[in-house]
């Protein structure tokens, strides 16, 4: 038998359905690869027994001719999705011992189609971070290292999911994206990561960070795999009041490879000060690829781009401070004793939350507090309206936007830990689409001068994931990215 860890998600689905190998064989090979990759620290909770049990159930259904559309396919799950009976921590000490009594809708959708849980992946605490350095369970290693051999961050917050896919431990993983938490780590790790339109995937059972921004999405090694995995995740859910009641199209069928006549916009404002030349060069190359495929590429203007990030750092912490108020040491999670009830709550939260989470709770509390609400929170929500308006105007002229995913390649661990704003700037190209609720995908498109992966992003109008996938597929094909990291972590 060949090396099953090499198979992508769609290829493993097809191989299982053709009975070239069993779900158990696939699971055993991938589990062995994951076990040998402990040095990457990609998982918070390993679930080998459950993986094998689910794979055996898949084999039984395949034998009985009752296979689902994702039967036996392995999916690693960011530890922000509640999984019934499996510890779910949000990478925080405050939820270190939390075992949900329910399953998130997105994972439930996957299991109902026959997919198999492949462990709970590491992440930034409560999804707050761009480098995976804020996890209570320690940082994740990026499988990619440049010639200097130093540890590189996998990006964040869905860094564990990105590493699992990039290191070929599993063919697919799911993450969540609030301001770039799927797309940025995908770019840093040389994989595909996609954030759907807000409302496309249910947020029910996903530990909340910023509810008006959070959106689950797929992380895979190809655009086709992302289309297949999204199809398994998406769908209307009455339990999420912002879930959109809309048909889930066959995303895989949208990959026609034909972008003739497609209008592609290149936003002028994404050319920012201090951006390395190689990012600009790759971006121009992306435009050339689309032109050669018959698309029409033109410059567009999104004047509010520069203000999306500061507006995000008001809206997201405000929502976080509200969402995280529930962690009080009473109903679940950590409890640290105090002199009285308030003392207990204050001690629990001080010891349970890490530094970045505490900073964001405090910023959020400040911008929502009496006397400051109008100046900060209301102002940011008005700017957000204008950002969405910018996109609406541009999408009257073009079908999709092409941008870089991140302003740099992956950086060395610790390099940005002391500079909060420069860490936040990692998401400068991903946050605007998040603020407007739009779908975006990062496609690996080339290597930096240091031999590290770089990504290009395609952004589409709301619910135009089909156009987004079609465009991304053409970029992927033209880029022909087949580089991979050396497996230094084995042995």
């Amino acid at each position, binding site marked *: 038998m060949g090396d099953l860890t090499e198979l992508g998600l769609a290829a493993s689905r097809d191989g299982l359905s053709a009975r070239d190998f069993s779900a158990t064989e696939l699971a055993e090979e991938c589990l062995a690869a994951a076990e040998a990759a402990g040095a990457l620290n990609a998982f918070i909770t390993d679930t080998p027994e459950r993986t094998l049990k689910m794979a055996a159930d898949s084999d039984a259904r395949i034998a009985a001719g009752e296979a689902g559309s994702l039967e036996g396919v392995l999916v690693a799950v960011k530890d922000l999705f509640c999984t019934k009976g499996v510890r779910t921590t949000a990478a925080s000490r405050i939820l270190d011992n939390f075992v949900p009594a329910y399953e998130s809708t997105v994972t439930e959708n996957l299991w109902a189609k026959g997919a198999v849980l492949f462990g709970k992946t590491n992440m930034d605490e409560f999804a707050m971070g761009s480098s995976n350095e804020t996890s209570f369970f320690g940082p994740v290693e990026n499988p990619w290292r440049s010639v200097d051999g130093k540890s590189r961050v996998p990006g964040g917050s869905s860094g564990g999911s990105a590493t699992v896919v990039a290191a070929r431990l599993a063919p697919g993983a799911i993450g969540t994206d609030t301001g770039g938490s799927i797309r940025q780590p995908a770019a840093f790790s040389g994989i595909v990561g996609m954030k759907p*339109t807000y409302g496309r995937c249910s947020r029910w059972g996903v530990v909340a960070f910023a509810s008006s921004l959070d959106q689950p999405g797929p992380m895979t090694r190809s655009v086709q795999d992302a289309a297949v995995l999204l199809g398994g995740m998406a769908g209307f859910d009455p339990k999420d009041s*912002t879930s959109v009641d809309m048909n889930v199209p066959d995303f895989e069928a949208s990959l026609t490879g034909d972008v003739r006549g497609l209008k592609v916009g290149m936003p002028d404002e994404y050319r920012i000060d201090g951006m390395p030349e190689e990012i600009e060069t790759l971006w121009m190359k992306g435009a050339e690829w689309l032109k050669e495929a018959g698309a029409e590429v033109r410059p567009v203007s999104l004047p509010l781009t520069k203000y999306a990030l500061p507006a995000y750092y008001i809206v997201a912490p405000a929502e976080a401070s509200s969402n995280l108020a529930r962690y009080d040491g009473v109903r679940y*999670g950590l409890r640290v004793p105090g002199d009285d009830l308030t003392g207990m709550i204050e001690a629990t939260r001080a010891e349970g939350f890490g530094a970045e989470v505490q*900073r964001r709770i405090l910023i959020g509390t400040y911008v929502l507090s009496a006397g400051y609400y109008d100046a900060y929170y209301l*102002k940011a929500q*008005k700017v957000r309206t204008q950002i969405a308006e910018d996109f609406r105007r541009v999408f009257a002229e073009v079908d999709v936007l092409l941008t870089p995913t991140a302003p740099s390649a992956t950086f060395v661990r610790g390099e940005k830990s002391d500079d909060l704003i420069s860490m936040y700037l990692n998401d400068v190209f991903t946050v605007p689409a998040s*603020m407007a609720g739009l779908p975006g995908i990062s496609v690996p498109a080339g290597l930096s001068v240091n031999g590290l992966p770089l990504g290009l992003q395609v952004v589409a109008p709301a619910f135009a994931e089909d156009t987004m996938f079609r465009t991304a597929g053409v970029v992927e094909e033209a880029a022909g990215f087949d580089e991979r990291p050396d497996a230094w972590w084995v042995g």
Partner: protein
Amino acid sequence: MVLDKATVVKIARLARLRVPKSGQEALVGELSEIVGWIEQLGEVDTGDVAPMTSVVEVPLRRRDDVVTDCDRRDDVLANAPEKTAGFYTVPKVVE
């Protein structure tokens, strides 16, 4: 500094986060840096723009006012740090 120590202590209290005296100074610096940076939003003329209330243009759904899930006391209490006789327990709040 954009924020002073008294303000930081006050918002920490509002957020129910205990901040030890030794950590206050550093926090004032960090939060001031962030708030100073987000203040650039003041440059944007928002005129009479309406604040965003919903990111997708879909009306908020309503549902019938009926019980959809109930009788799960043990599930609800399963993760409680302390519980007694089917209740959460907390430190004494009434003398």
